[in-house]
């Protein structure tokens, strides 16, 4: 019996300190209720 299916997710704890190339949070569609979950990582040298 398989009880748990783990979805593949990003390892949050990157060690490089963040490159900062990603979009700022409020820069696209919302303008009034931003979050960061729907942003892309744009680190070209990510491991």
């Amino acid at each position, binding site marked *: *019996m*398989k*009880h*748990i*299916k*783990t*979805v*593949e*997710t*990003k*390892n*949050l*704890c*990157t060690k490089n*300190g*963040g490159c*900062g*190339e*990603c*979009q*700022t*949070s*409020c*820069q*696209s*569609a*919302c*303008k*009034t*209720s*931003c*979050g*960061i*979950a*729907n*942003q*892309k*990582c*744009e*680190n070209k040298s990510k491991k």
Partner: protein
Amino acid sequence: MIHQYKLGGYNIVLDICSGSVHAVDDIAYDIIAMFESAAKTDILRTVGEKYIGTAIDGETVTAADIEECYDAVVSLRDAGKLFTPDTYESMAGELKQKTAGVVKALCLHIAHTCNLNCSYCFASQGKYSGERGVMSFEVGRRALDFLIENSGTRHNLEVDFFGGEPLLNFDVVKQLVAYARSIEKQHNKNFRFTLTTNGMLIDDDVIDFANRECVNVVLSLDGRREIHDRFRVDYAGNGSWERIVPKFQKLVAARGGKDYYMRGTFTHANPDFLEDIKVMLDLGFTELSMEPVVCAPGDSAELTADDMVIVKEQYEKLAELMLERRREGRPFTFYHYMIDLKGGPCIYKRISGCGSGTEYMAVTPWGDLYPCHQFVGDEKFKLGNVFDGVSNTAIQSEFAECNVYAREDCRDCWARLYCSGGCAANAYHATGSVTGVYRSGCELFKKRMECAIMLEVAKEFEECE
């Protein structure tokens, strides 16, 4: 910290600090719920009494199954995928410190005036509590130079053409893009332009420009005609729906797959906003965003407590509709349900806050700098101007220190690494402090995240089938 919820036929467990997402059966769901507060023997007994002898997925549950499931939970904990402690607080200021003084995005208020007179507009019909005015090319050019000068080693620079209605000053928009393109290579930069428009002035020239130069266009449409025309009227009081929809359709058809968002606002008039989403779909639009209205307390557009119940149900129904359409091969996207579990933001981004006032600023038509577009017009938040730079370092420091750990109420919230503490402007307007918490916004954000993650879990199962 974990967060458990049931949605769309799935039992979902989020391990907040590792970012892990688990889809579990009822036995695992109950074991995980008790895991941190009860002893193993108590958990096995309680869960056993509930499930031994029952059938799950056609198999009869045994005591061995319960114990095996318990062991699987222990293994995930030991592997850092369940009950992971929060060890990120010391890193909270690091990214901002490292990039202090680096600006990478500007919201250019090209026109503080508008050809529509929407009463719910957070920008007070484009005036932002001030005078009407449009940005000159000279001010805009200086803003772009300011951005380059202050962008450090950042390659991608984001610029929004915002208003009011930016197309009321379209010539300057075009001149600024031409200027940026003429200097970006020599500075090793890549400008990414976004245009936010109400659509009234879209013509072939605008379409050609937007599709050539803008990585994204945000098109304001509230959905159903009667809903849209209730607020989005011209100065004679006439609705704009009929005039803008064909223009939007033409622009999107010519976009050739480039990003756009059909962006609506829902208010007390339409908490059942899924109906508006359906209208957008019927009109042929598939990249959608609907935002809860942001307005002063007591405004007639404000969402009531009863509305909030409806809105949360609507978010769930929206997720169901997306699942249904995806299975039918007719997918559409909803901005807030776009979540990339495998490639989303790193932990530094997740704990840094939104970047307003530091890496992101708004520029008024006169060149004044504000922490973001929602603070424009509130004089005490004026940071400086594009000619002399940031002079109000006290206010900028408030924003630099504004991260998820700066908000006491966020510390125990499961969604903190998905929202990064939320919107400083909404927090300020709701509580008087940029490190306050805009509670109704939080409620809706959490519901959206539950739906977004459920859609990803469903995708995982669909791919396995």
